[in-house]
């Protein structure tokens, strides 16, 4: 399981830059990030190399955020691997609420971040099929 921080931001120019600067200028590295918009507001989901410090910085900046746990999966960076993981989950009737993926420094590997409706069950079925679950990224 991987810790993720979600932050509420207004959907207007400059807000993402400001948010990233708050974190980046204080030496916290954003390892993964997803930006979603819903009309006049948006949501940033991110995984950093120092979540405690990132949260302290956000709190200090007066922002609304929440820490949560998501599923981190290491997968092959090749056609079909995302489909395979999705199928394993769907066969077990697990719903994916959202997901984002990115390639890594490890050669031929990609990381998939998943939010599912049943985290424990998902870990169990994925492990059974030999998928490697990450503790951090």
């Amino acid at each position: 399981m991987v810790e993720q921080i979600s932050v509420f931001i207004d959907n207007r120019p400059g807000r993402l830059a400001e948010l990233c600067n708050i974190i980046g200028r204080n030496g916290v590295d954003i390892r993964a990030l997803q930006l979603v918009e819903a009309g006049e507001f948006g949501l940033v989901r991110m995984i950093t190399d120092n979540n405690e410090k990132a949260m302290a910085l956000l709190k200090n900046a007066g922002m609304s955020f929440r820490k949560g746990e998501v599923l981190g999966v290491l997968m092959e960076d090749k056609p079909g691997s995302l489909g395979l993981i999705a199928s394993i989950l769907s066969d077990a009737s697990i719903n994916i609420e959202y997901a984002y993926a990115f390639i890594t420094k490890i050669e031929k590997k990609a990381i998939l971040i998943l939010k599912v409706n049943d985290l424990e069950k998902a870990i169990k079925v994925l492990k059974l099929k030999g998928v490697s679950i990450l503790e951090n990224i």
Partner: protein
Amino acid sequence: MHKTVEEIRKSQGKLLVKNVKYSWDNIPYYKQKMKEAGVKPEDIKGLEDISKIPFLSKADLRHHYPYGLIATPLDKVVRFHSSSGTTGVPTVVPYTKKDIENWAELNKRCLETVGATNKDIVQVSYGYGLFTGGLGLHYGAERLGAAVIPTSSGNTMKQIKILKDMKTTTLACTPSYALMLSELMKANDVKIETLSLKRGVFGAESWSENMRKRIEKGLGLEAFDIYGLTELCGPGVGIECSEHNGLHTWSDHFIVETIDSEGNKTDFDGEGKGELVFTTLQREAMPVLRYRTKDLSSVTWEECACGLPHPRIGRITGRSDDMLIVRGVNVFPSQIEEVLMELKGVGDHYQIIVDRDILDCLMVKVEVTNEIFSDSISELITLENEIKKRLFEMLSLSVEVELVEPGQIPRPEGKAKRVVDLRKDM
């Protein structure tokens, strides 16, 4: 002071004396209020004694909902109207047959003042129903002998067709609806030359000179402001004449005074500035004595070039309370706060913004605190919709809701400015 003015004020005094006695005899609450103030009907000998009479507020009326202040037996009542106010308890106003006739007469006079005659075709696009606007102008126009087209509000394309095909000469509606008609005409390439409009009677909302210009240009008519309050009868209390320099209030039906925020009389010999206070002189079912309108304006008996011997009030410049009038609906910021407070974590930081595009729009910005923040977009949208739904239930008005980051609502001197009204300069 002009001789006739003196005479008019003297006869107002006579009607006042009669009305005070009538109210004392027939409305227990008025009697109680006057007793508490140490006033008896015989203390009121003329207009000069009016300041001895205690004020009546909207809260008094609401407190006696629905039948508590009716002066006549219920079988004399032929009609009820109710204020557009949505502060929980509405203000119910009863009318006897005579009250309805008088009300029609006042609206007839208003229409005459703006130049309408029995040859005119009057389209009443005010809402019909509990709201007084539609029926008030309807009865006035009929009494004048004009032809009434009772379209009520809404269905704007159809209204434009009627304006055009039926050659409407006189339009009665809210100023924002007039503007909406003109915008829709423009959008559909309906030229004002195809219309027969001469004049419009617009009220139930405050509007500026700029808005008057836009309406006049957009509809090709002369725009007149009409004043009224449900508590006094509805529309027909005051009307602009062709001088467009204040609204004449009918002196045989109303006494108008002004007071300051402490309730001290600020008009002397009929001249003054402040909150308007009205006393009805001929109402049977529910006379009102010194009703505080909360509308800020001025009053003058100075002779008007039009020749009407009725005092004029200035256009309403604001409110002495924080009530907002949005699309003709009375909205108190406290009602919005109440709704927000019901939802956990929502009501701490919010801002109410009123603007006018064509119609008034009401927007509420709510800061998303950690407490209500969710990682799920759908949950946030659900929250937004829930706030909208509850505000609609409270206000009967659709409100835009916007979730914003914490700290986005300015807090001058540590305290948030709760209400921003951007309509002022329009």
